[in-house]
């Protein structure tokens, strides 16, 4: 028996006059990886932003743990266990790797737990340990992505929102990051993953949604979508 952790229904989001999301609905079950795939500008990042409170939806509902969260501010959502590693990684380049991780735990007061979680992040990504005292701006793109994920985990979230972790990275780094995502998921983390790399994303996701110009045009299990001729044609280059 699985329980629904996040349920988005008929979400409409506008940026000024631009209608970015047209009635998007999706569900994420506790403990699974769900993914949103689609082309540039399809509304994948906007959907994540609406869930984490960065944009306010015009209409529709966002229910997390059976509670409506639409319109709450991002810091309230962090407190409820929603962590968002945003598009472009959003690390603080002038702060050190360690300070970035500390900021990820901004709302926590348990010093010992924070230190333990920093060590856990270093175990997941040993490269970050080597760079602990360096400013984050000196990291490579892949290391910055590792930092963004490790930092999001510092809030001890129930739901991890990840926006394009593969963007602009070398294939072996992408493979490493996806291996870690599986590992985190195996330890119980629920993940909503936005990706342009449909093949990779559907490969690890239990559930997938295909977005086109602000609408969900297809959904199913990762396997179903990977096997779907329409998806293979549009997103897997066949």
């Amino acid at each position, binding site marked *: 028996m699985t329980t629904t952790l996040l349920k988005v229904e008929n979400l409409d989001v506008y940026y000024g006059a631009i209608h970015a999301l047209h009635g998007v609905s999706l569900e994420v079950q506790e403990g699974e990886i769900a993914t949103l795939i689609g082309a540039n500008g399809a509304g994948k990042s906007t959907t994540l932003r609406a869930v*984490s*409170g*960065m944009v306010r939806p015009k209409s529709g509902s966002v229910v997390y743990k059976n509670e409506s969260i639409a319109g709450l*501010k*991002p*810091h309230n959502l*962090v*407190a409820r266990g929603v*962590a*968002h590693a*945003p598009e*472009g990684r*959003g690390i*603080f*380049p*002038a*702060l050190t790797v360690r*300070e970035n991780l*500390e*900021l*990820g735990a*901004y*709302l926590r007061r348990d010093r010992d737990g924070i230190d333990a979680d920093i060590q856990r992040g270093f175990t997941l990504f040993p490269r970050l340990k080597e760079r602990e005292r360096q400013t984050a*701006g000196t*990291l*490579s*793109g892949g290391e*910055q992505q590792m930092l963004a994920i490790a*930092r999001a985990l510092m*809030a001890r979230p129930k739901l991890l929102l990840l926006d394009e972790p593969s963007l*602009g990275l070398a294939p072996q780094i992408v493979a490493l990051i996806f291996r870690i995502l599986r590992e985190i998921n195996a330890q119980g983390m629920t993940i909503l993953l936005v990706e342009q790399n449909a093949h990779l994303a559907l490969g690890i996701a239990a559930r997938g949604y295909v977005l086109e110009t602000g609408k969900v045009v297809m959904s199913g299990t990762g396997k179903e979508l990977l096997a779907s001729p329409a998806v293979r044609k549009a997103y897997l280059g066949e």
Partner: protein
Amino acid sequence: MIEFIQHIVNGLSVGAIYALIALGYTMVYGVLQLINFANGDVLMVGAMLGYYIGQWTGFGARPSYLGAAALLVMAMVCCGVLGFFIERFAYRPLRDRPRINALITAIGISFLLEYGGQLVFHPGPFAFNVVPYTPPLQFGGLYVSASDIIALGLAVALMLTLQWIVFRTRVGMAMRAISHDPNIAALMGVNTDLVISFTFVLGAVLASAAGMLYATKYHRVDPLMGLLPGLKAFVAAVLGGIGNVPGAMAGGILLGLVEELVAGYTSSSYRDAIAFGILILVLLVKPAGLFGSTATEKV
């Protein structure tokens, strides 16, 4: 040589005051990219409150160090509240509007305080003597007034406190995160509105302390007294690299020293021309300021 040291001492005492005001500009700029032109006028409100509260309580009539300290604390508290309200009602409603709107509003608030100050208070000027007069201390040929020592000591103490807040506390970490990107800071769990309010309160508290020191140094208060030190502190903040906390301190001290040396060795009428001349030079040679840096982002 003794004359040179004398100028350095004088320059430090006025520079420390500029530095305190410059910190308010630079912190607010850091979190909102807004030049809060009202900051200099908060200085005036601080000094005016010091004067009036001194009249009501009688501390002003019988100068004492304890009374002066009490007035300082009261002025700082009142101005902290003023800073909170300025942000809450003048700037926050414009947060998502083009930046120029908030800038024009800042100039408006500045005028409101200056000319509203003439209505609420009195055009003045009034003599301001809350610190007991003591003859200048003499070290060899060097004269140092008690008020200069107090100004310098207090300014340094406040600057160290601020440095500690910004670099060693949670709220300081949140301020630095917001100065990089408020949206990302919010994703870390930072309540950005609260931290921005706190930043304005801090800036106003420092400005009011600077106002009391400034009024003590020049022995007078009036509703337009904040204009020139406010502008000069803005120059100091740009000089140090706007948005940079140690830069504002260094910029303030440097400006005070240069002004004093220019006034001492040439003519004091060039003092202000030099201050603004420095601003133009810095903007030409190092647009980011002495401590400023231009950040590059990885893609």
